């Protein structure tokens, strides 16, 4: 059955340092590239062993995703299409801070985020808009009827899938896909989306 596979980018040096990236365009280093190659092999083995053709790999414009998409294309082929629908949300004033600094200096906003609501942070992209943007991208891809992988970021995967299953963006029913991990979704006969797999990855 047809599906859309969603992959989260491999970790960057900023991820390793526990630093908020958002729209900051931090590229993968050698360790990240190795991780992307590792993940590409596993995604290929799980989903593409039967030799799909005409695959399209949609990627967030940020380099950490494009590099992860390139690693996947090396294994299974396919055309990479950069698509703004799958970009990362802005974390506004938090970008460049470590999560420890965020917890220390923005305690109230940190608690807001932990409870599932948008924190009151200048420049923050609201989660409902992110959910809607990503879900619209998924619907568009499904209508194209081509096998597809979307390489994107942690928040867009969780928020896009919440929208797909009809849950509000503030819901805490879905966790987060690990770096270089994957999820897959299908639109079934009734027109509803279902989550076939979520949070695949190494841990």
């Amino acid at each position, binding site marked *: 059955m047809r599906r859309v596979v969603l992959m989260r980018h491999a970790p960057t040096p900023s991820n390793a340092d526990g630093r908020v990236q958002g729209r900051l365009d931090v590229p993968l280093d050698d360790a990240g590239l190795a991780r992307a190659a590792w993940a590409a092999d596993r*995604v290929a*083995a799980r989903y593409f062993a039967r030799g799909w053709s005409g695959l399209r790999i949609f990627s967030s414009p940020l380099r950490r995703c494009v590099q992860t998409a390139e690693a996947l294309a090396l294994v299974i082929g396919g055309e990479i299409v950069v698509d703004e629908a799958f970009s990362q949300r802005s974390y506004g004033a938090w970008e460049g801070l470590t999560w420890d600094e965020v917890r220390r200096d923005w305690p109230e906003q940190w608690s807001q985020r932990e409870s599932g609501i948008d924190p009151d942070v200048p420049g923050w992209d609201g989660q409902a808009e992110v959910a809607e943007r990503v879900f619209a991208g998924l619907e568009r891809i499904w209508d194209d009827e081509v096998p597809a992988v979307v390489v994107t970021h942690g928040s867009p995967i969780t928020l896009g899938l919440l929208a797909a299953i*009809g849950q509000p963006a503030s819901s805490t*029913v879905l966790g987060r896909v690990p770096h270089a991990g994957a999820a897959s979704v299908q639109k079934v*006969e*009734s027109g509803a989306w*279902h989550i076939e*797999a979520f949070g*695949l990855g190494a841990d």
Partner: protein
Amino acid sequence: MTRLFIVRHGETEWNKLGLLQGSSEIPLADAGREQARHMASALSRLVMPDAVLVSSPLSRAHDTGLALGNELGLPVALDDRLRERAYGVWEGITPEAREEGWPAEVEAWHAHGNPHIEGFEVHEDVAARMVAAIEEWAERAPSDLIVFSHGSSARIGMMGLLGLPLTHRTLGNLGNTCWSRLRRRPDDTWTLERHNVWVDVLYPGVSA
């Protein structure tokens, strides 16, 4: 905070033939026992040493659970509320026979409703007993709770724990010996962190 791993049993002959098992007692096939060994080898490295293991009493689930229990040196408790949904008169008949005998009910079932056939256990009843059992065992488990159950009851149970509507198939069924991981939040609601993890690829336990 409790982590719940919910694991589907290994493959049976009826799984291979595409027959609904429900409350029927169908043992693991040799391939299913092999799958259970692989699952046990992977999960034993992921769960806490004081994990609590509990299973549906149907042998395909219990034997899958024992594979992990033996690996960890832990007992596997049984709880009848974790059994598979009863499919009534649909158990053990081919998909073609279902279509032929009950076309309207099959259609309702594919649209995720409850078909009106004799002996079919409705979504709401399955969710209620699965949620009650899992919440009760989660209270008792000091760390990880590992539940061994079935395709339909595991899926409906997770949807119940998460508060998702039962009329849409928002989660797909687990594959044989695949598992999901949920975490109980401080406010006692649940978050789905992993779903349908497959042991052979995207390999759990490999260091990042």
